[in-house]
């Protein structure tokens, strides 16, 4: 079942990429960004999971050594926290760009927003 979990995560990643590359609607592209972020964050969390693990937070009256024997890996969580922040930042910037593009062209459709040659 572990293999299926990983493979579905990679599939989710590909759905995000598909939305970014093949879709023409600005809003849908922003949603693709969100899905892509989810997939990457999910992969990092999965990589750090330990079966029946506890959160890496020290309960009162326990030593770190006791916690270390059964906590999940805290490092990927710290990385994901940074990655969530980066994802929010990218989304905010993309929304700002989409809003301005709508102001200029009156549409979210990339087919009508095409002045540049590839």
């Amino acid at each position, binding site marked *: 079942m572990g293999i299926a979990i990983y493979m579905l995560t990679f599939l989710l990643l590909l759905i995000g990429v598909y939305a970014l590359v*093949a879709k023409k609607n600005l809003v849908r592209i922003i949603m693709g960004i969100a899905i892509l972020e989810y997939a990457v964050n999910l992969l990092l969390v999965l990589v750090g999971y330990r079966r029946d693990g506890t959160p890496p937070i020290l309960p009162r009256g326990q030593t770190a050594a006791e916690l270390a024997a059964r906590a999940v890996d805290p*490092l990927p969580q710290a990385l994901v926290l940074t990655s969530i922040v980066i994802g929010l930042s990218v989304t905010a*910037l993309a929304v700002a760009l989409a809003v301005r593009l709508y102001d200029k062209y009156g549409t979210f459709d990339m087919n009508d927003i095409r002045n540049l040659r590839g």
Partner: protein
Amino acid sequence: MTIDLFILLLIGFMLAAGLIAVETSDLLSAVIAVGAAGFALSVIDLLLGAPDLAFPQVLVEIITLVLLIRMIMTRRDTSRQTPRDTLRTAVVLLGGGVFLVAAFLAVVGLGAGATVPAFGEPLLAGGHPGVSAAYLWQFDKDTGVANCVMGILLDYRAYDTLGEATVIFVAIMGGYVVLRKVGRKRQAQEPSP
């Protein structure tokens, strides 16, 4: 094993929501589907022992939803159903297929080479624990915090967090750049020097 099943179902739910978000014709439904996927992710975070992530994930989700819904509610969606760009779709399908095969080999392994550790059995639990085992062993003495993730984020790897704070700053400044109504001064104000 039940937790595996739960997680598999939740990821399946995220996949379905993601597909709906990408393919449905109504933008509002699509945004809500993305929101549902995000909430499923935060539930997965909770199940996987990462309450530190579930919390910001939900919050970020809400902010994103508010931004996206406001954006589409005040604007008419005039996008047309255009015929599928067959070339791009084919490239994505082909590349995606190659990627999935490679990922499958990476997870399952081919011959004797190293594979991605099986789900639930990271290096931390095995014989060659990496750098994070050292963090877990002594974070209370080193940093004096009870929450190991915060200890890593703001002490062991605080330099990354400086970068993280900078990313938000950059995005906000970039947002202001983009939202300026006038970027260039008009020609009249711009004589050659």
